[in-house]
């Protein structure tokens, strides 16, 4: 592999505490190194910003519900198709882009790793086929556990070791990365026409509560010592007044400590927090409770969050929170699709327009930004749009612009039809904090990499780490002429290296790189009971055999990268 040296750029690397110093970054054989030989190819980054490749901690980019969105929304692709060009295939779509466009757009923005946030285990093969067809970026997927019959059965009796053995088996069978829980218990209740709106609502038949599921999954996760913590979409998403449910969920972490060899410190990652920080009793007195949530998060060192910023676009909502999507289609009357996944989960899909003329949408926009601006530790608060739920991931540069520029926020607030409601029902207008490039690097690189337990590998520019390096056309020495320049710089990177291969030059794709599928191989003590339970459930309940369930082999995972965990002792 060839050598490269990126010279004279302003480097921002939280893993080494580098805050914009002029520094050369050397790349050899796919890794960052101290120095390279004189024959290394030089990239001139004078007057430009250099960061590690960004890390996406939560996006819906592959799998059956994403594809349901693609299939039932041909209008999302209208006028978006780009013809084949160089090493790029034809690609299109806006809120639910094709797999190819997903890879290209992430790479062009300087993202080199992305995590699919909700993999239905039964459809892991589909998820992996789409991941395989998403070029350039490394990807992993979180299987969903919060409504899984095995988990509900084991946790009802507080069987942590059995839950852990089942998790280890499922991660191996589906080539999953982490333990995801979506509306714990609520989605199973949805199969009975019900929901769990608080953490103490019992799940029908199983007679277990969301609190017990969440606590149990956290314990099992730490029992195994997985790289990532439990990744939770709590109950009661998207309803006025739901911040109390969110705080109740967060309080379940009290007294819990992370136990792993990956440098991860949190026991719970709370995702798309914007959707869970609502006050008020209805859509009229709907208000922000971002402060209440961030007061807790700022103190709780064992919690990380991502924001879920509303980008004010027409998008496609999709979640394994089946009852929520039904609730949403009743509100906006747009087309609804629902997918039940036997024994495991269920998902819904509904298009949604976040209009700047609707006060609720404008307040949601403000809440997402408040979370980022109120975060005292940017290493524990990450930028997401819960793609495509609050907006497409291609809007990250715009979110970064709003976080970095009070002027840009002010312009948007003034453009809202119900400006007074945004000012009165949130605190966004009173916040003058502007995030620095260093803080942005924490929120999009070093932070999510640490939360995922990948901090020795990605998210930084230390020698020995993967050579995922991005150069942005942004000079931190010069004052920002207009906030839109920030957005333009982050939208199309000047240069992107992925594992030491240049994949983007001048904002255009130049190589499809060498994408990997990252998964977690957790070894546990033999557990005959769990193995027997799995066999029995496949014989009695599943509509497919165990042999057709597992994702194995080159067809599904052509280039695997396993993170080893030993939980046998």
């Amino acid at each position, binding site marked *: 592999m060839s050598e490269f040296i990126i010279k004279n750029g302003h480097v921002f690397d939280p893993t080494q505490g580098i805050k914009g110093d002029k520094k050369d970054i050397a790349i050899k054989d796919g890794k960052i190194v101290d120095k390279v030989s004189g024959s290394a190819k030089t990239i001139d980054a004078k007057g430009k910003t250099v960061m590690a490749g960004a890390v996406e901690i939560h996006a819906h980019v592959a799998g059956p519900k994403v594809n349901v969105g693609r299939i*039932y*929304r*041909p*209008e*999302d692709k*209208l006028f978006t198709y780009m*013809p084949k060009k160089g090493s790029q295939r034809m690609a299109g779509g806006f809120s639910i882009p094709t797999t190819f466009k997903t890879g290209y757009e992430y790479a062009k923005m300087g993202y080199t790793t992305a995590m699919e946030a909700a993999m239905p285990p039964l459809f892991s093969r589909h998820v992996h086929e789409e991941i395989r067809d998403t070029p350039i970026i490394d990807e992993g997927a979180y299987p969903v556990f919060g409504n899984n019959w095995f988990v509900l059965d084991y946790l009802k009796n507080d069987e942590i070791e059995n839950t852990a053995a089942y998790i280890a088996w499922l991660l191996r069978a589906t080539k999953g990365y982490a333990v995801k829980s979506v509306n714990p218990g609520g989605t199973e209740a949805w199969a009975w026409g019900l929901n769990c709106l608080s953490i103490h609502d019992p799940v029908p038949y199983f007679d277990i509560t969301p609190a017990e599921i969440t606590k149990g999954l956290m314990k099992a996760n730490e029992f195994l010592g997985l790289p990532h913590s439990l990744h939770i979409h709590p109950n009661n998403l998207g309803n006025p007044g739901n911040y109390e449910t969110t705080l109740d969920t967060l309080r379940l972490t009290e007294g819990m400590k992370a136990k792993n060899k990956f440098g991860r410190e949190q026991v719970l990652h709370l995702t798309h927090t914007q959707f869970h920080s609502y006050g008020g009793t209805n859509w009229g007195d709907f208000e922000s409770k971002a402060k209440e949530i961030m007061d807790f998060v700022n103190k709780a060192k064992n919690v990380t969050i991502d924001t879920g910023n509303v980008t004010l676009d027409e998008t496609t909502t999709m979640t394994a929170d089946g009852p929520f999507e039904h609730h949403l289609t009743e509100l906006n*009357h*747009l*087309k609804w699709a629902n997918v039940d996944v036997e024994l495991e989960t269920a998902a819904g899909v509904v298009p949604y327009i976040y209009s700047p003329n609707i006060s609720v949408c404008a307040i949601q926009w403000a809440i997402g930004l408040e979370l980022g601006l109120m975060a005292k530790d940017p290493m524990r608060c990450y930028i997401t749009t819960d793609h495509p739920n609050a907006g497409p991931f291609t809007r990250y540069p715009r979110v970064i612009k709003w976080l970095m520029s009070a002027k840009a926020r002010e312009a948007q607030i003034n453009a809202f039809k119900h400006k007074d409601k945004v000012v009165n029902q949130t605190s966004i207008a009173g916040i003058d904090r502007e995030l620095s490039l260093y803080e942005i690097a924490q929120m999009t690189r070093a932070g999510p990499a640490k939360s995922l337990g990948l901090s020795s590998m990605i998210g930084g520019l230390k020698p020995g780490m993967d050579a995922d390096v991005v150069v942005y056309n942004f000079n931190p020495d010069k004052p920002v002429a207009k906030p839109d320049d920030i957005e333009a710089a982050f939208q199309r990177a000047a240069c992107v290296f992925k594992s030491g291969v240049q994949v983007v030059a001048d904002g255009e794709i130049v190589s499809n790189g060498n994408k990997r599928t990252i998964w977690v191989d957790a070894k546990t003590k033999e557990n005959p009971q769990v193995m027997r339970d799995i066999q029995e459930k496949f014989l009695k309940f599943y509509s497919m055999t165990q042999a057709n369930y597992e994702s194995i082999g080159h067809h599904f995972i052509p280039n695997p990268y396993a993170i080893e965990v030993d939980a046998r002792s």
Partner: protein
Amino acid sequence: METVTITMKNPPQLYLEADNVTPDKFAGKSASQIAELHVYEGNTTSTLGKYFEVAGSAGATAADTKIVVKGDVSKVKYLGMKMSAGELVIEGSADQYVGAWMSGGKLLVKGNVDAFAATGMKGGELTIEGNAGNYLGAAYRGDWRGMSGGKILVKGNAGSDVGMYMLGGEIVVNGNIDVHVMTHAEGGKVIIKGNAKSKLGGQLVDGTIIVFGTIDVMMPGYKPVGEAELEIDGVKAKFAHFIGDTGERKKKRKGQVIYGNLYKKL
């Protein structure tokens, strides 16, 4: 107003996608510049000039530009797509998506048009002297936003699914109409001077359908509420009045339920 005439001289083997043939795209351009605008034939991109002879020159703005399309364009799609002002006259028949998403200006087709004409139309006037195909003034595939403004006149017959997901504006069909009229509509008006077949206003939330001729089969979700006298194009007549679709979600205004209206001439 300046006039540009484009004449088909080298008909395409496949269907030609000519989304640049609008006063908006022609405005401010000379004949040779217009000939350089792109068209697609299958998966190849080429220029308008390869297929058409371009004469005259465009006005400075779309409003000052008139385009006359001559020759056989029955295999040309997207003529007048997204036009916002000016005039477009098609002397023969055209393929699909004529005037799709148009928001202003005048578009006249002297022959017939195929399906999806005026898809998502927002404003302006579309006149079709011949027959219209299916999905006239409807929404794009999968979309819920059909024609929302402007006026369409079809002097001949119209196909099926006219005004699907219509939100506003008016469609007048002088001849007969095929099945499915204003399905899922939330506004707007369709006037049928000839006969209709069946499934008029299925799952219609709001909007108006007026039929002068016969209706083969009425939808079961429509309820007769008496008679009404209406004046259409200066002619007064008595109509049977139905409301519906009673099986579909309904909006409320000031506590009153708003129904869609179907009138059939007595």
